[in-house]
Structure formats: C-alpha cells, structure tokens
C-alpha cells in the first residue's frame, strides 16, 4: 500500500512541481482515501450463477460482426441510402422519360440556345402521346395542363449527350413510323396459320396444364402425408401432455381444468440456472439433474433438457447404468415449440430406491443422434449426478419439479397422494433463479389461482 501511495505521490509531483515539499500532506490525504475504500466483494454464488447464465445465453445474445449492410442498417443510414436511391431513380426516370422526349422532339427549339420548358402534362403522364394528343384540336401545340416540373428550364445546348442521342433516335423512329404506307400494300400477313399449327398449340397447352396439375397433385399428396404424420404424432402424444394455456384459462375461470393435451412451452423453457458444458451440441448444452420428488417419498425425478434441434434425433430410453444395464423409465415430456430452438424438457420418474442406489455409481444417460455432418449415428453419454438434498438442487430443477407436480396433480391426482398445490407454490416461489423471469412469475400466479379455485 505504502509503495503504491509513494508511486501516486511521485506521479503527482512529476505532473505538478508546486506540490514538491508537500509529500507528507499528500500521503495523508491519499492514504486516508485509500483506507476508506469500502469492502466490495461480490457474492460468490451470484458470481457463479451469473457466469453460468452468461455462458448459456452467449449463443443467443452474441451478434456477429456487422457487415456493410448491417452497419448501415444499425446506424440508420438505411433511410438516407433509401431516400437517395429513390431520388436517383426518380431523377433517372425523368431524364430518360420517353414521353417527355417526344414532347421535346415534336417541338424542337430554334437553334441558338432557346429555352425548352421542361414540363410534362398529366395526359402525357398517363401515356397519351403522339401528334393527336400533343396538339390541340386547333392544331397548335397544347399548353401544359397541370404540370409538374421535370427539371429546371434548360437550353438545348445544355442537354446531355444521352438526351440528344435519345432525342435523335425518337425523331428517326417517328419519321419511319409516321410515314404513310405505300398504296396497295396490305398490312396483314399474307400467309395464314394452318389448322395443324393450331392443334399443336392446343395440345401443348393441354399437356402443360396436365403437367402442372400432376405437380400440384403430387405436392398436395406430400402435404397430406406430412399432415397425416403430424396428426398421428399428435394423436399419440395428446394424452401425454397438458396444455398450460388451457389449464390456466380454466383456473382463471374458477374451474379446475380437465385433463388436456399439451404443456405449452412458453412458461417452461426460458432459463437455465445450471449448465453442463461438457457435451456441447450446436453450442447448446445438455442439462441433466437427478434428485427426489417433493410429492412422493418413493419416487425420484430425472430432469433432462436437450436442445430442440436435437429432439428429432433422440430416442428415449435408453438409460444406461455404469454396469451397462438398460433401465426403462416412464418419460414425461414437456414439449417446446421446435422452431424457437428452445430446449425441450424431458422428465423421467423412477423408484427412489433405484435412483439412490444407482446414484452412488455413475448413471449414464445415452443420447443418440444423427450427426448432421457425417450422417452417422452418434452417441453422447451424460453422467447423471444424484443430488441427495432437494434444496441443494438448482433453481431450474426445482422449478420444473414444481411444474411437473402441478401437472400431475391436475391430471393424475390419485397417483400423487402426497402432492399439493401449496407445495407446488412453495417450490416454484423458491426457484426464481438468478434472473427472475416473467414466465416463471406467470406460472406462480397460475398456481395461486389454482389454489383459490380448488
């Protein structure tokens, strides 16, 4: 400390020579200030949780280096660029406007730099051009009606090369086109289409129509098949899930809900409080935790969260013990919206005796998936650690244990005799996590409403 203060004093004197000789006073002031530094050590639990949270959220929060377009978009230059582009387009359109050029060409200004009024009439703007429209019935050049300035008045000499060349081209074209046809010459082609040509034409059109119909039909068939497959999955799974929104709606009406279809993902899968970084698939961790349930002294709970992208490749079970045994579990799924990329929760209940006995060893969960790159079946093995004390599990675990208990109470109340909504509430309220989230709060509110409805 003394050394540091001496350094600071030296610095001060070096910077301000008038302080020389006042070292003692300076030392006193600085050392008093240094000693008064408050203790400011962050809570290690907070630091660790924040670290886990940041690592977990890194892929979703990280924004790649902005490219030129991104840079422009971010700095709102896009408006300026857009406005300039539109202005340039309008300018180019006006400069190359053939209607305006027709006007110019039909009323050539005398040489010597006479002024050309750069106007376009509304009629011309609608596409009417040519001698009939350009001149009034009296044969005189038509006066500009409601006009919009194209460019400021300019002289012939001031025109660009493009304008002049374009004008010449228009003039030449008008000359050839406006020449009266030679007498006796027929405008219609002398050769007629044979009947065979027409047949071919119709046959081709018919073939094309049939072809497009068959494509449409095949697409429709594929869509129907996909839809049927989805329905099949839905039918198979509908008894497996509970619809949170439906349950919540019924609770809010004062009715306890009847068994429903899906657990909605939105309240379920926002935050991890714990992360297992070893097995990283597509930058998302596989999360597994195993402990006791609150509602049944005989049952333990294994909670698995896997990236949604991994879900199609996962086959459950197997659960392999260290001894190589396969154990069957009743897996309960809390599904998520696959498109959002949020993790999917899969929970398994097992006899507590099994979990406790195997918790002493390494219980491994095997997740097999098809590797996108190699196309081969790959297995990820994740060790499951048994946490003896429920209060020492992560907030993530406790929260989902609460959701599961709530689900089971709604759907299979007779199977969870020790469970209660009060217990669910207590568990959920104690599991906000490092960063409290609105969706967890929403769940807690719903549980409260469930209690009052009950």
């Amino acid at each position, binding site marked *: 400390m003394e050394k540091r203060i001496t350094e600071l004093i030296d610095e001060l004197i070096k910077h301000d020579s008038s302080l020389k000789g006042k070292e003692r006073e300076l030392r006193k002031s600085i050392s008093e200030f240094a000693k008064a530094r408050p203790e400011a050590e962050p809570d290690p639990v907070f630091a660790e949780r*924040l670290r886990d949270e940041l690592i977990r*959220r890194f892929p979703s929060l*990280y924004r790649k280096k902005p490219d030129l377009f991104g840079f422009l978009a971010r700095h709102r230059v896009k408006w300026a660029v857009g406005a300039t582009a539109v202005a340039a387009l309008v300018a180019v359109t006006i400069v190359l406007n053939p209607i305006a050029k027709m006007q110019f060409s039909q009323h050539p200004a005398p040489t010597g730099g006479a002024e050309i009024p750069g106007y376009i009439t509304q009629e011309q703007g609608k596409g009417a051009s040519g001698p009939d429209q350009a001149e009034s019935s009296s044969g005189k050049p038509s006066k500009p009606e409601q006009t919009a300035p194209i460019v400021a008045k300019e002289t012939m000499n001031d025109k660009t090369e493009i304008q002049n060349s374009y004008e010449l081209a228009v003039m030449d074209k008008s000359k050839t086109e406006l020449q009266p046809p030679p007498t006796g010459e027929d405008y219609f082609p002398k050769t007629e289409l044979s009947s065979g040509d027409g047949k071919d034409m119709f046959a081709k059109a018919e073939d094309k129509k049939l072809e497009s119909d068959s494509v449409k039909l095949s697409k429709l068939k594929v869509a129907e098949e996909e839809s049927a497959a989805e329905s099949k999955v839905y039918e198979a799974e509908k008894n497996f899930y509970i619809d949170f929104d439906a349950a919540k709606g019924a609770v809010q009406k004062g009715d306890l809900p009847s068994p429903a279809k899906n657990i909605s993902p939105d309240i379920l899968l926002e935050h991890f409080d714990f992360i297992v970084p070893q097995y990283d698939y597509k930058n998302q961790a596989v999360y597994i935790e195993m402990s006791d349930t609150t509602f049944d002294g005989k049952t333990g709970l294994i909670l698995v969260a896997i990236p949604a992208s991994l879900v199609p490749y996962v086959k459950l079970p197997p659960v392999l013990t260290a001894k190589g045994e396969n154990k069957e579990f009743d897996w309960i799924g809390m599904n998520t919206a696959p498109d959002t990329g949020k993790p999917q929760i899969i929970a398994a209940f097992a006899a507590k005796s099994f979990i406790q006995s195997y918790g002493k060893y390494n219980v491994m969960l095997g997740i097999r998936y098809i590797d996108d790159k190699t196309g081969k079946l790959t297995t990820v093995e994740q060790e499951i650690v048994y946490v003896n004390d429920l209060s020492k599990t992560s907030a993530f675990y406790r929260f989902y244990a609460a959701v599961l208990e709530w689900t089971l109470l709604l759907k299979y109340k007779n199977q969870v005799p020790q469970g209660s909504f009060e217990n669910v509430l207590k568990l959920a309220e104690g599991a906000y996590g490092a960063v409290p989230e609105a969706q967890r709060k929403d769940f807690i509110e719903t549980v409260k409403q469930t209690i009052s409805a009950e």
Partner: protein
Amino acid sequence: MEPPLEQIDKWAIDSSNGDRNAFAKLYDFYMKPIYRFIYFRTYNRGLAEDLTAQAFLKAIENIASYDRKKGKFSSWLYRIARNLVIDHYRSRRKTMGLDETWEIASDIDLEEDAGRKEQIEQLKGLLTTLSGEQREVVMMRVWQDLSYTEIAEIMGKSEAGCKMMFSRAVAKMREAAGLIALFILLNWKG
C-alpha cells in the same frame, strides 16, 4: 494473478468471433473489478449485482463490434458499466449530473457497512468537496488501480486532462481534510 495483456487481447478477439469459453475467461478476470467499479458508484449490493449482470450481457451483445485499435478491452468494458450506472441514475431522475450520483448513492444503504460508518462519513466529507468527474478519477486511480490511459479511455478524456483532474482532486481533498478534522474535533468536544 493478472494475465498478460496479449492473453486478454486474444480472449477478447476470440470472444468477438463467438467463442464463449474465451468470454468466460474474460468474465472470470473482470467480474470482480467491474462489480467493485459499480458498487463504488451505487453503494448497494443488489443494484451492483443487477448492473454487473447487465454490463456483461451488454458486453456479449456488442463484443463483435469491439475494436482493439480503439482501446483496451478493460476500458471498453468499464465504459459499458459506467454508462449503465449513469443510465440508472438518469432513469431515477429526469435530469441529473454525475455530481449528484454520490448524494443519491449515499441514501441507499451505506448504513449496511455499519462497522465502517465513521470512516465512510469521513470519506463522504472528503468526496463531497470534489466534482463528480474528480471523484471518479480518484476512485479509479486509488481504489481500482487503473492507469491514466484506461481512465482516459473510460471517461472519454485526454490522459493529461485526467492527470490534471487527479492532481486537483488530491489538492482539494488535502484542503478539506483539515476542515473535516476540525469539524470532528469540535463535535467530539461538544
């Protein structure tokens, strides 16, 4: 032990390319300093934790745009934290200068540190004689041991200007120290 600057630069570059493990290393190294940096300005543990979390979340969001040529990573990170603190106080009051942040902070929970209450009262006495920027410079230089280069980058000032500010702040504290000692003595006698 402090890792070499090259190592920090490498972690920063890796993080800016999307390597979250590199960011985790940066977090491990800078979490405590950033927390302290915020705590010294807020004197509220909960608020300091909240703003620290926000600072690192913001750092992840913007890490890709971090440019070593524009300054050290630490300065960049401290600047994020400083802006968050300023924004926090701005949100509490519609118009408030940095000078006022100490007064507000002192209302929060200085009393929590009861064992050091007297010392903190003295400190408050010393610091209230300084302007907001002077306080910041002194805190960063003496409490956080930041270099003038870093302080200048964080505050957006010149290095010479920061040195001058520090020198003036110490001179003011030296003058104030005598008055405070006299005040304490009179109170004790009374």
